[in-house]
């Protein structure tokens, strides 16, 4: 999967599940999920489940910090090169 496809899949997940829209303008890649109130505690865990189940990226407890998970760009930086071939 190319980086662009991964980014697109992440965006689609956030837009569909937390913003209830397919409008790409509703979310920028740098937007903080926490500051914008997009994710709450349940949402963080759902996002981790998505990374593990849909993208095959295992997230260790020590990695479950906002700097890895708090925006599309942060997520991309965290998971790039970790997706199994």
């Amino acid at each position, binding site marked *: 999967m190319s980086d662009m496809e991964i980014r697109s899949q992440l965006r689609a997940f956030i837009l*569909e*599940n937390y*913003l*209830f*829209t397919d409008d790409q303008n509703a979310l920028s890649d740098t937007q903080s999920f*926490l*500051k914008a*109130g997009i994710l*709450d*505690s*349940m*949402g*963080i*865990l*759902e996002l*981790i489940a998505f990374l593990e189940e849909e993208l095959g990226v295992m997230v260790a*407890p*020590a*990695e*479950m*910090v*906002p700097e890895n998970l708090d925006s599309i760009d942060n997520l991309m930086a965290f998971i790039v090169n970790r997706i199994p071939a």
Partner: protein
Amino acid sequence: MCGFAGKYSPGATVSAQAQQLLLSAMLSPISHRGPDETGYYCDEQVALAHCRLSIVDPAHGQQPMVDPSSQVVLVYNGEVFNHPELRQTLTRLGHQFTTHCDTEVVLRAYLEYGQSFVQHLNGQFAIVIWDPREQQLLLVRDRVGICPLFYSDTRDGILFGSEVKAIIPAMMDSPRLNLAVLDEIFTCWTPLGSETVFANIQTVQPGEMICLSHGRRQHWKYWSFDYSPQKNAMSETEWAASLHEELTDAVRIRLRSDVPVGAYLSGGLDSSIITTLINRLSPERLNTYSLGFSDPDVDERCYQRMLIESLNVSHTECHVTEEDICDAFAESVWHAETPMLRAAPVPMGLLSAKVNAAGFKVVLTGEGADEVFGGYDLFKETKIRQFWSRQPQSESRPLLLKKLYQYLQLPAQGQAEYLRAFFNVMLDQPDHVLYSHMPRWTTTAKAKQFYSDDLNAALQTSALSRAEKILSSGSSMSSFQRAQYIESTLLMPGYLLSTQGDRMLSMHSVEGRFPFLDHRVIELASRLPDALKMKVLNEKYLLKKAFASQLPPAIAQRSKQPYRAPDARLLKVLVERDDIREGLSESRIRAKGLFSAHKVQRLMRKARSKPLNTSESQALIGIISTQILTESFGLTTL
């Protein structure tokens, strides 16, 4: 509870027959409030109708009640619990009574004291008095908003009634949705002022009297919450003894009734105290009623059983399934006359049906204790956030919130950072009047993402700015008192005592009585130092101290568990129902125009496949109930 409706139209000329027809149309939709008898009164200016739930002196006390000599006429819903003492006082002053009913005491109190009569009443009431001598109509509501009273201005006067549905048949125009109030509910759970979600229909505020006379209207508050703690006035033990005495008397006078009185038993501290006191004061074996759920997260039956065994009461359990709640949802919205963000009121309606089926008309409950004595988690949250605000960079202080909300699922690492993100609302403004409620209201307001563009465009000002304006008088209070004030003056009358209280009781002709809301108890609590309400993070500290020795230890030491319906499980069932799916179909959503149809479809899809978080769940229940409300009342929306 009873119900009444009426019209005041000085100068209008309407035939007696037309008045009678109008009154019948107004009273008919609220007949559930008073199934025992009805009465009517008409003169040239005033038309009054009353439906009675007979509780005190059932053979007498018919309403509307007219004083033969002055021709003053009264309709009244509620109870005045100190009527025997007031009757004695009035008798000493020369009044003569022909009934044993509290209604006559209220009428004679007005004749004796004029408008200040209300200061002599201890109870829950909505009263309308027409005084032809003064050409004056009075509308009065009890101190905290237990009994409802709505009104609507007309070209030549005013319409009024115990529920909105009593007023609508007499309105000239078809009813419209008040969009600003809808937005208030989708932010703060409750209307913020006297306006209701029905445009041009207002509520008399708790503790308010409205006087209409000679074309003028005056509003005034005859009572309000006043937090003036007495420093070092009494020891803890003396406060506890004083509270014990006041609450015992509040229960004692609320047992006055000519029909049997039962009690609700939730398994929490408050209803356990009330039930224990009734059991001590009443020679009869007490009948208690409680809710049970299959969802262990919200079920409290193990605590209920503990108390039932210790008190030897005759207990009826109302086991409510998710399907039961779904079946009763639309009818509950009809009775509540408001959008609901949680399903919690619905089981309360199912419980009152059980009480009614058992032949009971009156129950005592523990409502109000959390507001008056500081029981809610929100008060603890406010205290923790205050503590945190003094060292905003602290890593450890926000972790106290995790201790408070143990159900919060957080990743093992970075918990402080996540808590900071979720609860760092106004951390730099701990003295702001909205500080205590902003995290909750911000969560609730996420529902606005489902608003349609048209609704967003129609809203002029934000609900939060209106809340700030209304609550600005609380700026001199401590943060704890401000949180109490918001709960007591907004959420308690606007949600707890109405949507989840009066409406769910009266739909099955049951009256609730609330000893913790006796104004003597409230006034005592208002004099308490904050630390006696919540000691460190021990909620309702003084209440526990006053009554712990009389309760099973597991109940006395139990942490507050808020009453909730199983919303998570319920939503999965609700969204699969045909009537709900059709009600939220694209065409029906578009027809009302309030919400974005495609976003609502996505929310429904998510609800079918996974659990919703708090704000999504509130949004979905809010959208479903708003659609039901606007369709069932035929409300014009945009």
